[in-house]
């Protein structure tokens, strides 16, 4: 069943993934099985993905993250929210992030 992502949700990096910065390359190394499809798969986040990932601290809502980013980037709040919903869905489906607060 596909998760409905809401801007009021809170997410945090999964403990089953290690985020590493190797000379500017931001990668996610799965620790447990079921995250990558192949035995030697690791993942890379692009610049947008990285910025959002680093703000997912298990405390801020996605909306709050969008607001913070709107101060930094020359993009509309709506555009930023779309980006955040996109990456959250992608990361959640890959089990790289977890919901920090269960939905009511």
């Amino acid at each position: 069943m596909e998760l409905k992502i809401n801007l009021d949700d809170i997410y945090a990096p999964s403990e089953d993934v290690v985020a590493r910065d190797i000379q500017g390359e931001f990668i996610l190394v799965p620790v447990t099985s079921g995250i990558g499809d192949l035995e030697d798969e690791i993942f890379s986040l692009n610049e947008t993905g990285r910025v959002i990932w680093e703000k997912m601290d298990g405390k801020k809502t996605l909306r709050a993250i969008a607001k913070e980013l709107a101060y930094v980037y020359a993009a509309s709040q709506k555009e930023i929210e779309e980006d955040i919903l996109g990456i959250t869905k992608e990361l959640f489906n890959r089990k790289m992030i977890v919901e920090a607060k269960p939905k009511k």
Partner: protein
Amino acid sequence: MGKQFYVQTKNIRESRFIHKKLLISRLDIELAERCNNNCIHCYINLPADDLLAKEKELSTAEIKNILKEAVSLGCLVVRFTGGEPLLRKDFEEVYIFARRCGLKVMLFTNATLITPHLAELFCHIPPLEKIEVTLYGMKKDSYEAATRVSGSFEAAQRGINLLLEKKIPFVVKGALLPSNKEEIDEFEAWAKIIPWMGKPPAYAMFFDLRCRRDVRKNELIKKVRLSADEGLKILTRNKSRYIKEMKIFCAKFIRPPKDKIFSCGAGCGGGCVDAYGKFQLCMMLRHPDTVYNLRCGSLKDALENFFPKIRKIKATNREYLSRCANCFLKGLCEQCPAKSWEEHGTLDTPVEYFCEIAHTQARFLGLIEKDEKAWEVNNWKKRISDFVKRDVIN
């Protein structure tokens, strides 16, 4: 910001980072020099119950500190080898630690100590690199003639079956010995059932002597080494493939090394930590002047300062300078400081065994004439170019 993909899903192997000139992209750690097998041909297998060796081994905390530093320097892959790495009681702890640091783990093992519990662990926390299992024979007799341990064949079978059952990616490798060299076809046919093989198994056949220079054991190894002609026969089983590969290899890699003794990549972007914390440029080179004690230093210092100094060492041995330095088969020949150390206790003494192997192959490929010595050949560039262009080898 804008519409784009966020997570790149294709495989990113460590090679992607090499161009970034990482101080270390891969680290080898020999968790133990001890092994539960007693293979006749092995360069590094102290008895499993060697208490003296065990006492000297790196502690769990020391290994974790080395891993932590490697990660801080950008290392992405650690290879656990030995001896038999699974002999260590703390293997599971060290393995999980490495994976939780964000390292991919490559494991070299004989598979005899893979338990259902360990297989479950590899299933739950995958190494992210294929496990490499060395097999010493297809039958109990041939296998145990090599390992000299009763029951080791069944134990290896059990371990391999556990990996298969749990679908843990692994590949097998062989060691060609008098006891098993007639089993190659059987071995290769069997290896095809392993879903992760991709290509035929690799073989060790031109064995290294003992890395700690053990004269008695060296005599045993010399007895089971294939001769240059026997080796050529194995290498040319698929003649057209061998020639095709050698054309590419020779065009790219063979040339006289002059007085430079390190023409490989040893100590560049990695190295090997022995069981006692000595950091080596490669798995084989243990000449005391070329190893760095991590118990009183750091990976960073070794990689930035110590290894580059060692790599600058030039040959001074007169025989080496008159032969190897001018020999265009360097590359095809396995002569290197590590082999010289194992055979002669020096860094730059020609090793006759590897010289003979290289000359035998070069004669087969038409690079040199019968009785010709490659270091006496002046027009070697033309010979390589003619070989690369030639359609058929007579």
